[in-house]
């Protein structure tokens, strides 16, 4: 099976902190990987490195066999955890912007997704509610026929109905020739989609493997394993 993401001994240090320490991870083609962990565990940094927005301090990162850079940006569809769209843009203009820069952007698919998400191309990003902006951003991300989808907290600000719509879109859009890395705090809602999971804590991978295998071995759901793994974190926070 082809491996889309290969990470070996990845470390990312900032002036005063170490965001990632000796992370090793593989994502095979056709897999959806749940990247789980509490705030500050290094999920976002890892995703930004995959998207080519943060440079690693040491270690190897390969996306489809290439180190993150211009070439991988054309293959990775990244959804940051904040609204990255300009407020002056309309939803349709955002689509045109993506179509201008990403050759894998499917305009027809975008229009279909807008219909599913009940969005209009003429709506200005600045006038949309947080949930609607999330839907617009997800429509853009899923309209690309990317090799790797990297979604950082894609369900923030979505009500349960919208979350269900987005999850349906996510499943319908997923192809066998791509992979997806998804970080979320709403583990219970999405764990059924995970093929693999990786638990991060303090910048290190503390547990990783096949989601079904983990469930079987531990006799618990991924959410329960999450509570088990990060119990000490919750206790410390209390």
């Amino acid at each position, binding site marked *: 099976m082809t491996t889309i993401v290969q990470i070996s001994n990845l470390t990312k240090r*900032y*002036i005063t902190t170490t965001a990632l320490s000796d992370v090793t991870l593989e994502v095979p083609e056709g897999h959806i990987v749940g990247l789980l962990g509490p705030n500050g565990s290094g999920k976002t940094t890892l995703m*930004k490195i995959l*998207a*080519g*927005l*943060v*440079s690693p301090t040491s270690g190897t990162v390969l996306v489809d066999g290439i180190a993150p*850079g*211009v*070439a991988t*940006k*054309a293959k990775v569809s*990244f959804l*940051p955890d*904040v*609204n*990255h*769209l*300009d407020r*002056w*843009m309309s939803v349709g*203009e955002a689509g045109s*912007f993506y179509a*201008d*820069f*990403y050759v894998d952007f499917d305009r027809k698919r975008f229009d279909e997704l807008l219909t599913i998400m009940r969005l209009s191309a003429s709506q200005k990003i600045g006038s949309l509610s947080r949930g609607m902006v999330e839907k617009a951003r997800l429509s853009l991300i899923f309209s690309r026929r990317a090799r790797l989808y990297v979604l950082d907290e894609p369900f923030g600000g979505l009500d349960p109905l919208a979350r269900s719509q987005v999850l349906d879109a996510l499943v319908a859009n997923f192809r066998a020739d791509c992979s997806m890395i998804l970080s979320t705090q709403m583990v219970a809602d999405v764990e059924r989609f995970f093929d693999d999971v990786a638990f991060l804590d303090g910048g290190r991978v503390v547990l990783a493997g096949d989601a079904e295998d983990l469930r079987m071995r531990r006799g618990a759901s991924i959410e329960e394993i999450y509570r088990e793994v990060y119990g000490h974190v919750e206790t410390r926070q209390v």
Partner: protein
Amino acid sequence: MWKLVRYELRGRRLLYTIGLIVMGALTLYQATRFIGMQENPAQPAPVSMGVPMTMAFFWVLFYAAMTVINIVTYTQDLYGDTGYLIFGLPLRGAEVLGSRIVLLVIDTLMTLLGGMTSVIVLACLAPGLAQQVRPWVAGFLLTGDYWVMCLGVLAVIVSFMAIMFFGVTFGKTLTNSKKHLGSVFSALVVIVVLWLSALLGALLETNLFEGVHLTLSPWKNMPFIGGTPAVPEQFPLVSPLMFVALGLLAFAATSWLMDRKLNL
């Protein structure tokens, strides 16, 4: 790169457009006043070149404000959420930075042309001044030395901005997301680079290249501005050339930082 320029021109030019409209309106207002004065049957008081020159000063202020906005927009892209949109594109750092430089050149040329048009129109309408200025307008516009001087100023401005962009990018990559620390670093980098450039330029001008100057007569077709415009002026050559080389270096370094050391 050109797609990014098109996008920036379409979406992020609101303030610039508003500024241009305000400057255009100011010119129109003053021009209408001059026309009104000329149509007045009473002999209007002659207007000195000071009035059109005040308008030129406003254009310079407008340009300075737009330059600051350019730097702020770039800083916002590096530190703010829209950076994910711009720097996530499959474009090389040189293309992203190149688009900013192209925009800067467009801004500068539009301001120069707008400012010149504004000043010439006012000078040609000002009572008492119009008769002096009108015969010289065509000659002034065809003064090669004036345009050489403008080109030199443009090159220095672009180099200055490239150094500013380098300072901001260097501060960001060095300190990551700590905005205030990054801004302090950026300012320090820019100050150090400019100081070193001035020092080195002066050193080269006085020692190695003493007497190397550019002799131009940009104002030779503007006798009405006073002084002795026909006498050629000596402009420094080595310092600006070194500054432009420094700008090119800053451009290359910024592109490299964007490609290899980005930390959004």
